[in-house]
């Protein structure tokens, strides 16, 4: 559910672009920045305490994810402008049939402990993450690879007393080291999007020393291969990083020290930002967004951007009251998304009009015909569906700020369709997800989806295909499944994207969920930072920072 990655875009302007082209290290600065100050400069950025020790394949939350993104460089990287991924550590990724990939990595790149990054480091890391007894949270990302079923085992009685059997093998048969810089990956079925996935943090290489110690110990003192290396981590206080001077790939950082200050409250961080005690804050707290206060506080140091995340309302299709697509369409068309965006989010979030977030490569924009607000048609549809009996309760988790917009949605459904609708909060995200996972929801509920990697595939397979990892409403349409399968196995990305587009048209007819709005992000920085860029998911691109 979280996304990698850094990568300065092709849009990087002026001096920064020249720097990339010439491949040199320290820039002469630009836009009023001072190269000297930048070179020895230190910045403090906002962060939250990572929940787990920092092991890439075991990190599923953004607190630790951001540190991992900065500390590691993967085979591919995602440009800041959201464009198609391009090679980072990979010299080339070649395939003839989207099934067997030959991956060559660049020579002479190093881990922070000075050892060279070799093909073996990838193969070992992936095998470790996929092997069930290691219990890595991101293990399922390797399910495309041949032999994955040999290294995994399922607990026969879920949570019961029986233990899962030991897997048949501890290495996937689809991974083969060819030489020091080359390895071959065989997938169990053709998957055109596989190279795109490789920028996700689960696919990062691990140094040899990782395999000689406990993952927890490594995670408290992690060794990556990215532009910054680990210095220290004081729980709940700060994680200190510093420039890795032996780094020789594109996204070298220009400042020297980066302190990630771990905050408990966003308001405290915001006060520090205003007091010039903090240099960058990715998400300005809601309290400062109200009445556009942040604009007066920060002036031109406030930055607005859009991120590839969509807020949905999902239907529990397993509940037969919601089985009729016409009813679902009626509910969707009775929601005035523009009003919600203007009145509740002060325009910081955009009304949704497509199924896959339009910032994602391959995602067709504006393909959600059910997202149009049309109260008359909605009413007609509801009548055709035979009305709705009883109360329609919209559920949300009350430990995060969803109350306002969910109540607005319920109110609109009530006014425009005459259904007895209301919104109800479930105390915590954990209880909320527990009910969703157990398929026990009795009304539509909020959901959000942030892409794991930039490709439309990530907006179809997990959400709308039978058995998809986040298809919690148990939506199933054989036509969508067939199209998605054909798209996943297409020989190239263009063909794959086209097929996914067709699949989404079928989804549009069924309305299994309701896209409501696209997320926006308001960030702020201190007077010290003269130049910065945000990456494709709105995180700070460290390599772009100049003082």
């Amino acid at each position: 559910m979280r996304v990698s990655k850094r990568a300065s875009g092709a849009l990087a302007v002026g001096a920064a672009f020249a720097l990339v082209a010439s491949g040199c290290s320290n820039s002469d600065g630009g836009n009023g920045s001072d190269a000297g100050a930048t070179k020895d400069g230190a910045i403090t950025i906002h962060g939250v305490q990572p929940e787990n020790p920092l092991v890439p394949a075991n990190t599923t939350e953004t607190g630790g994810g951001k540190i991992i993104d900065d500390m590691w460089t993967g085979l591919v990287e995602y440009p800041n402008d959201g464009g198609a991924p391009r090679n980072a550590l990979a010299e080339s990724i070649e395939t003839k049939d989207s099934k067997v990939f030959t991956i060559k990595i660049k020579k002479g790149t190093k881990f922070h402990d000075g050892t060279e990054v070799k093909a073996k480091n990838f193969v070992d890391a992936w095998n470790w993450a996929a092997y069930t007894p290691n219990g890595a949270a991101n293990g399922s990302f390797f399910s495309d690879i041949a032999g994955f079923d040999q290294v995994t085992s399922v607990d026969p009685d879920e949570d019961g007393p029986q233990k899962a059997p030991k897997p048949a093998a501890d290495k996937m048969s689809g991974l083969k080291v060819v030489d020091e810089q080359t390895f071959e990956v065989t997938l169990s079925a053709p998957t055109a999007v596989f190279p795109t996935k490789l920028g996700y943090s689960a696919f990062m290489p691990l140094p040899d020393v990782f395999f000689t110690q406990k993952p927890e110990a490594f995670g408290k003192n992690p060794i990556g291969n990215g532009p910054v290396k680990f210095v220290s981590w004081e729980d709940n206080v700060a994680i200190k990083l510093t420039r890795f001077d032996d780094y020789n790939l594109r996204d070298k950082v220009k400042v020297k020290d980066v302190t990630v200050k771990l905050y408990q409250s966003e308001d405290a961080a915001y006060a520090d930002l205003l007091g010039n005690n903090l240099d960058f804050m990715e998400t300005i707290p809601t309290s400062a967004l109200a009445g556009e206060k942040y604009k007066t506080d920060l002036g031109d140091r406030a930055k607005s951007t859009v991120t590839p995340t969509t807020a949905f309302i999902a239907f529990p299709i397993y509940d037969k009251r919601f089985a009729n697509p016409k009813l679902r369409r009626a509910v969707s068309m009775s929601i005035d998304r523009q009003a919600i965006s203007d009145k509740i989010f002060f325009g910081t979030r955009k009304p949704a009009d497509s199924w896959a977030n339009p910032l994602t490569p391959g995602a067709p924009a504006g393909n959600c015909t059910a997202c149009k607000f049309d109260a008359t048609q909605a009413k007609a549809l509801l009548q055709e569906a035979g009305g709705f009996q009883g109360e329609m309760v919209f559920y949300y988790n009350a430990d995060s700020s969803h109350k306002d917009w969910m109540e607005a949605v319920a109110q609109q459904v009530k006014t425009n369709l005459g259904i007895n609708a209301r919104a109800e909060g479930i105390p915590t995200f954990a209880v909320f997800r527990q009910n969703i996972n157990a398929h026990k929801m009795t009304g539509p509920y909020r959901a959000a989806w942030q892409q794991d990697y930039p490709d439309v595939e990530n907006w179809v397979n997990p959400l709308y295909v039978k058995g998809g990892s986040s298809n919690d409403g148990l939506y199933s349409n054989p036509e969508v499944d067939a199209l998605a399968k054909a798209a996943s196995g297409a020989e190239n990305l263009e063909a794959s994207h086209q097929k996914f587009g067709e699949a989404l048209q079928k989804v549009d007819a069924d309305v299994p969920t309701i896209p409501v709005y696209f997320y926006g992000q308001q960030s702020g920085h201190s007077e010290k930072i003269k130049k910065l860029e945000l990456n494709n998911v709105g995180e700070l691109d460290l390599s772009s920072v100049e003082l």
Partner: protein
Amino acid sequence: MGRYLVRRLLQLVPVFIGTTFLIYWLVWAVPGDPFAGKCGERRCPPEYVAALTEKYHLNENVFVQYTIYMKSLLQGDFGTTYSGRSINDIIATAYPNTLKLAVVALAIEAIIGLTAGVLTGLRRNGFLDNLVLVSSLFLIALPVFVVGFVLQWTFGVQWKIVTPTVSSEMPFSELLIPGFVLGSASMAYIARVSRTSIAENRRADYVRTAIAKGLPMRRVVGVHLLRNSLIPVVTLLGTDLGALMGGAIVTEGIFGINGIGRQVYRSIVTKESATVVSIVVVLVLVYLLMNLLVDLLYAALDPRIRYE
């Protein structure tokens, strides 16, 4: 005295076991599966959940879990959180911070509260008395987070006299404002209680005698009056240390202090019984010991009180 102390210390044992079990059971009873929300909007892989369930004995019943926990606790091991961090480390880093903050708050409330109480108790209904009355009512009425945000905004963001949040070294100077915020409500109570107590004893016979035999006013107030009026104030201050430590969650959040408040909150939400109990165990000990200390102080303040 010695026997009394031993008896009191022995009493701690059942209280200790009772509170820890109650808390363990309460957190255990919080609804929600600890791993349901851990992987965002999708299910965690079953292998991952199974591995953790096994490791933390989550498929056992609450009594077994509690016994396993207590066994390692008695060996000085608080266990680990679900993400593998040692709870001993968490306590070792978070507790000193909260304690430091609470002690600063306690000192501020004792000094300001007592001074205001003594002055107003001696000169009732004067201008100062009314001023203290109004401002203490004001402080009691204001929620802590309002006081916190206002002071942080004024001193940290507008005037830039202090940094808005406390840095990790926690120097004393940076703790003054958070300490004042944390202690503000109790400070007002201390002022009220000591004022009443002083005013009441001011009319007592022994004070009249002391004045009549010509003792200087400083001695009458400092030795005779204050010592007898301090008992309710000491009770208040003593029990307040525990309350300040446990109740610092809001102040810690506003000023970015890495204390126990947030740890407890997070652990309750994620159903980490072991972490909650471990932190609370130490709090319980603080409460019990402070109460004992207060009782012993009574004897020092008032010779009429003796312990057998």
